[in-house]
């Protein structure tokens, strides 16, 4: 059964230096508050996993918490590059980052194999491109008709870190809308940390594609309203497109980045300071000032 805890306690309990951590979300329900807490607690040497690393991984990588990244697309959605990710890969700043990259279909098959307890997954993929030789891909033949398919090893992170809309009092987690690979990640990982917008008596999806993670598949839940900002939580918050645009300017400069992180994340007591700055309109002031 899932236990409820503060976000500080949840991260301290589940994320260790050296952990393989998957903070997932396909532009929706991205666990920013949890990512901030990982940075605040100064975790080191993490292997980050995610299909679509975006601004939160830019922040974690730029803060020197990670030594490796397993991914398929890393960018600021609708805006452009992740400058901290690029600085790490291109210049080894603030620390070198070992990358292992796949296609989306390959990552999805890896997570699915992990969630299914299989040693590998198969897909009609990795044909004719240069990804195959950069990743751990095998080709196997169908024992029935000889057709060749790609095989990819199961992906089983130590910790899945997710944001969802609701948890009920028994610790069942409800999410809906675009749910990406979140169910597969939760079921593939050894431990599951979930932040939620709200605790409710009964899960009540307010959109399509409703899913439930039963309490017994979740380890720790922290209630963190607006915890997916600047991404969104369908039915609760909308995407802060302005923030994503401003992030480009903040992350482009090492010093501005560090100053921003110090002010709103590292030097803050919790996610509340960040939300207060957001409400006061000062969160992206560093990007306005030049």
């Amino acid at each position, binding site marked *: 059964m899932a236990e409820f805890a503060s976000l500080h306690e949840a991260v301290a309990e589940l994320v260790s230096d050296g952990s393989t951590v998957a903070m997932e979300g*396909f*532009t*929706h329900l991205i666990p920013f508050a949890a990512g901030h807490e990982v940075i605040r607690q100064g975790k080191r040497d993490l292997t980050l996993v995610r*299909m*679509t690393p975006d601004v939160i991984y830019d922040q974690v990588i730029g803060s020197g918490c990670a030594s490796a990244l397993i*991914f*398929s*697309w*890393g*960018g600021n*959605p*609708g805006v452009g*590059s*992740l400058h901290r*990710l*690029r600085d790490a*890969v*291109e210049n080894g700043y603030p620390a070198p980052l070992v990358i292992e*990259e*796949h*296609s*989306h*279909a390959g990552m*999805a*098959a890896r*997570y*699915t194999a992990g969630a299914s307890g299989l040693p590998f997954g198969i*897909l*009609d*993929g*990795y*044909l*004719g*491109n*240069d*990804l195959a030789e*950069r990743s751990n891909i095998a080709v196997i033949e169908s024992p029935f008709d000889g057709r*060749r398919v790609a095989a990819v090893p199961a992906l089983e992170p130590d910790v899945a870190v997710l944001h969802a809309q609701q948890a009920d009092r028994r610790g069942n987690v409800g999410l809906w*809308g*675009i*749910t*990406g*690979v979140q*169910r*597969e990640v939760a079921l593939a990982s050894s431990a599951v940390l979930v932040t939620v917008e709200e605790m409710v008596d009964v899960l009540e999806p307010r*959109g*399509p*594609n409703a899913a439930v993670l039963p309490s017994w598949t979740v380890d720790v839940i922290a209630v963190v309203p607006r915890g997916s900002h600047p991404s*969104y939580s*369908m039915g609760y918050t*909308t*995407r802060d*497109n*302005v923030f*994503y*645009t401003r992030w480009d300017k903040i992350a482009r400069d090492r010093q501005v980045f560090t100053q921003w992180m110090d002010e709103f994340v590292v030097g803050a007591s919790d996610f509340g300071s960040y939300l207060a700055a957001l409400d006061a309109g000062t969160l992206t002031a560093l990007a*306005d*000032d030049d």
Partner: protein
Amino acid sequence: MTETAYTSNEIMSIVAARHLNNGQVCFVGIGLPSEAANLARLTHAPEVVLIYESGTIGTRPDVLPLSIGDGELAERADLVVSVPEIFAYWLQAGRVDVGFLSAAQIDRFGNLNSTVIGDYDDPKVRLPGAGGAPEIATLAGEVIVMLRQSTRTFVPEVDFISSLGFGRDGQGRTGTSGKGPTVVITDLGVLKPDPNTNELMLVATHPGIEVSEVEAATGWQLGVADSMGRTEAPTEVELQVLRDLKERTRVAHGEDATVRPAHRSG
């Protein structure tokens, strides 16, 4: 000229939209591909089925999504599925007629690079990566590529093949079920693979664009079709529908309307 003035992005979107037929199932990327696919849906192809890799199927966004996972896409979809499912049950199973792709670079055999400029292990520019494109490139019935044309983007051979066109020798599609890039739409004209060599050649130029301009913007000795075509200028309707869509988008997302001015005054 008598036609209404238009931008190079607008003609790219309009020409790409014309390549999408009513009733086709289209796997759409963010940016110009999304703009073109929705323009097609709002003009001649109302029954086109748009799929985004975030898992939204048959979506009819009223405004353009800024990210591949905007709530708008989910709220206006016939159904929303998981990401593993969108790739396995829908793309891989051969249910997608047309894939719309873009990239940082394309080469003369239609191979796409969105991974790295320079050496992989010591990159000059680290790009976002391949995302969903590698399997769209091999599994969609055909692929439409949209890319602004210059010698930096149209190169003889890409540094890294993120998504297969016709391979490094033009004959590299063994084992793939889709036809690959059947058309490349740029801000200057339209390219198609030569039926024998699969090398991209110019088949049409947009209004006001000379063949020599396209040649100058191509990193290899560009072949030109025997019977060169001329892109029909955007119609009033096409331009109006596209601009209305973009205006709705601007207002909905609030970026330019409310933020940029504040920023400029800041």
